[in-house]
């Protein structure tokens, strides 16, 4: 599998570390809603199809990438720098 790192170009899977589901929303730090925290920490949807997830280019520039990957075919649909895409989301 190849992931096209926006900084480094297309690189082999072995250079990356999977860093988890990118669809989760962390509750507000002051929140005491245990079910929301529980959902954030433990609940995952086992998606068959396109899945947004974080990959770190740990053997390269070390940036976290927000990747949309099909769990059925391993096709990478999009790659963005996580920091930028998370900031864009926060701005919305």
């Amino acid at each position: 599998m190849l992931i096209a790192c926006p900084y480094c170009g297309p690189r082999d899977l072995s250079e990356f570390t999977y860093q988890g589901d990118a669809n989760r929303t962390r509750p507000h730090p002051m929140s005491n809603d245990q079910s929301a925290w529980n959902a954030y920490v433990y609940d995952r949807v086992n998606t068959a199809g396109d899945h947004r997830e974080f990959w770190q280019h740990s053997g390269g520039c070390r940036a976290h990438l927000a990747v949309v990957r099909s769990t059925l075919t391993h096709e990478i649909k999009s790659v963005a720098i996580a920091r930028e895409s998370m900031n864009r989301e926060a701005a919305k």
Partner: protein
Amino acid sequence: MSPRRAHNGGRIDRATRLRFTFDGTAMTGHAGDTLASALLANGISVVGRSFKYHRPRGVFSAGIEEPNALVTVIRGKLREPNIPATQIELYDGLTVESQNRFPSLSFDVGALNSLAGNLFAAGFYYKTFMGPVVGPLKGTRFWMFCEHFIRRAAGLGRAGYEPDTDRYEKMYGFCDVLVVGSGPAGLMAAKRAAATGKRVFLAEQEAEFGGTLRWKSATIDGLPAAEWVAATIAELATLPNVTLLPRTTVWGYYDDNALGALERVSDHKAHAAIGEPRHRHWTIRAGDVVLATGAFERPIVFPGNDRPGIMLASAAARYASEYGVLPGERIAIFANNDSAYEAALALKDAGAEIAAIIDVRAGVSLSARELAREAGAELLLGYAVTSTSGARRLREIEIQPFADGKVKDGATRAIVVDCLAVSGGWSPAIHLASQAGHAPQWDESLRAFLPPSPTQRWTGAGAFTGAFSAAAALGDDHAVNEPEIEYEPAPVFEIHPTGKKSGKAFVDLQHDVTASDIRLAHREGFQSVEHLKRYTTLGMATDQGKSSNVPGLAIMAAARGLPISEVGTTRFRPPFSAVSLGALAADRHGHFKPQRLTPMHDWHLARGARMYAAGLWYRPMIYGAGGETVEQAYVREARAVRASVGIVDVSTLGKIAVQGPDAAEFLDRVYTNMFSTLPVHKARYGLMLREEGIAFDDGTTWRLGEHDFLMTTTTANAGKVMQHLEYYLDCVWPDLRVHVTSVTDEWAGAAVAGPNARRVLEACVESTGVDNDALPFMGIVRGEIAGAPVMICRLSFSGELAYEVYCGAGHGQHVWDALMAAGQPFGIVPYGLEALGTLRIEKGHVTGAEIDGRTSPRDLYLDWMLSKKKPYIGSAMVDREGLVAPDRISLVGIVALDDRPLQGGGHIVEQLGEEPRGSIGHITGFCFSPALGKYIALALVKGGKARHGQRAFVSDPVRNRYGPVEIVSHHFFDPEGSRMHG
């Protein structure tokens, strides 16, 4: 009669004789032989015993699909088992052994299994051994008792015990077009791609290029096929954009057109050239892939079809034409298609007598009749082979009329032959395509699975696509002269005579799976192909069912009354054929593992340090002085620290620079305690949790400036903590203006500890004071030691007055030497990890043994570090019910009451009984405490503090250590901390 070398013909070098030994018997062959062809040329018909029934078996194929002729290759003390003899190129001095026979190949006691035939049907072992109660042995215990003997009786070759001394290497290849297979279709694809200037790799699993063209009688553009191949390869070899990879099997097809291939570089040589590896593993990244992997001929299943002397028709022809070997003197052909007629002619041309061609079809084409006439064979149409005889070699076959898919009764005829060449049609080698495509499609006219539609960038060519002739593979550019062959076979996969007991009909020769096993699986409900495979082990042997897959499916389809297309096939998974583990590991083992050494490493070694691997780091365990035991050494070192002063290398601690305007805010979020209130030039001990409230790592963080912190982590977690920080900055709090940089390797560190530590520093530190005012507890100063800039923080892991002295890694040894010299008057002692551990256990400080990924801060009595003023990672979940339950295992101290050593992992129990049980916790760290004069330990025990003062026992059945202990506070020594604050 037996097989022998023909008087002439073949592409072997008859002038070169090569010596080899088979089961200790010296034999000879020629350059260009495989072990299989050389064994046949020496008249050897039995080359192995079968897996389950120990039946004699001979060479069955001429290629990688070989199910029978597996041997063990012996090189010195090394043994490599289960290598197909068809894949071993002969070299002078080759030594091989046959397999799965006891005591010898010709007399095998295991062959008695064959007499007990029906006992050993599919599922026999499970049904017999897994259920019953036999004497005192209940259920699976009976199986465990028998398993050893069963595993010995059934099986393949035996691997050696010696370490593999061969060299292996890895290569990464990049090309525009990878062509897999070098038969006519592969050669054409390579030529065409090369002409466009693309970078082309041509991989061929055999030693020579050309595939079937090397031994077929066809001519191309007026040249004999083999000469045309040689000319084409010579032309390709001159092109700079073409890489030829002979002896290279492409074995796996992975995402984004990444393919794994194994190149057998020197297996065919008596001695590898200097620097040459045995195998080279290729990871090939290809723009496009052309699959020209050809097709496998498959057998017809009939009773007695496993006798030595029965082989695939194409293999028999190849032995005759390529190796000049007659697999028999009087040969019969048994077929359901035309291709075997071409084989008959090749065998006749090499000097064999073709006794008969037996064909299940009632009528055949004119060209087939012509081939039969030329071969001088009696043509028996509408017949089938229904039984065979001969002890160690085929002697006679029996045939009966055959029509409408059934054997007709009566009129049995016997034919005396010593070889039977069988063809049941052709199956394209779609293994790689199946790995990179959808489900294969059954073709009703070729009666084979054709390649699926791709899910990756590949195209197919030649026999792989079902176009079996050379003309079809080469296209219109070349004039091909070859016999006209109808490859479409009659729909006959099995000859199943009824009403007569004529012997076992084998489908999977290597795993001894018979046609009746498949029918048994059907009767017992294992009807899906995936169940069939696992229940009978059909196709699960080392040949992966390359020749048995389709006949097996056809028999199941017939039993279920369904077309084969509805029964389907199992998915082919990598590897296509065996891949050596050595090639997969290549250099990544033994002394090639990277090592991380501190700047003072050589000094430690020179001082007699015994080193300890901590991840990739090497750290001194003890400094051995003249015949000391480990315990004597660390007790001496730890005692010296408490009495005067010691020095320890702490360069391996993880160090992360956390910098930026929001650095303090960031640290408040990742640590449980507050860092934004920390003054500049002060350090603080911090604890990190994971999101679910479990302790993650601890260490001190130093504030070097308003926006500039130096975080230290445990040696083991340095990488994980770095990744943790990067994750939160990138994915959770992208708005924070913070940059983290790993600086572990930039700093060398030495901890100077003991009542005289300050005096040592006073003697060597310049440009700063180190007295209590200038450098209070947890204070930081910058200064110089012997001219080198240093940063000193007063903090303590040992519980003594202690300082960590950091300097640039390049000055590490220089500063260390200066500290040693300054410490000389105080008898400074270097100490290792064992003494460090002893000092911290006496103080009750936790490390990775207690922060083990399961303990909460409360379990470790670190709840005083949990800030109530701010949220932090884990704050929302650290107070969950389960994490505050009173019966959680919590940190305690343990004192051995029998004055014997304790060991890590030993369990703590309330009572000692006959059987180990009732664990209330376990030991995490242990030592002899010089301060207390006792064997002590830290442990995680249910209830923790509530048990202080209680008696319990250590129960360590693995090391047979039992005895009374007392549970005490983990603060064994100086609980008030007066020594380090002094």
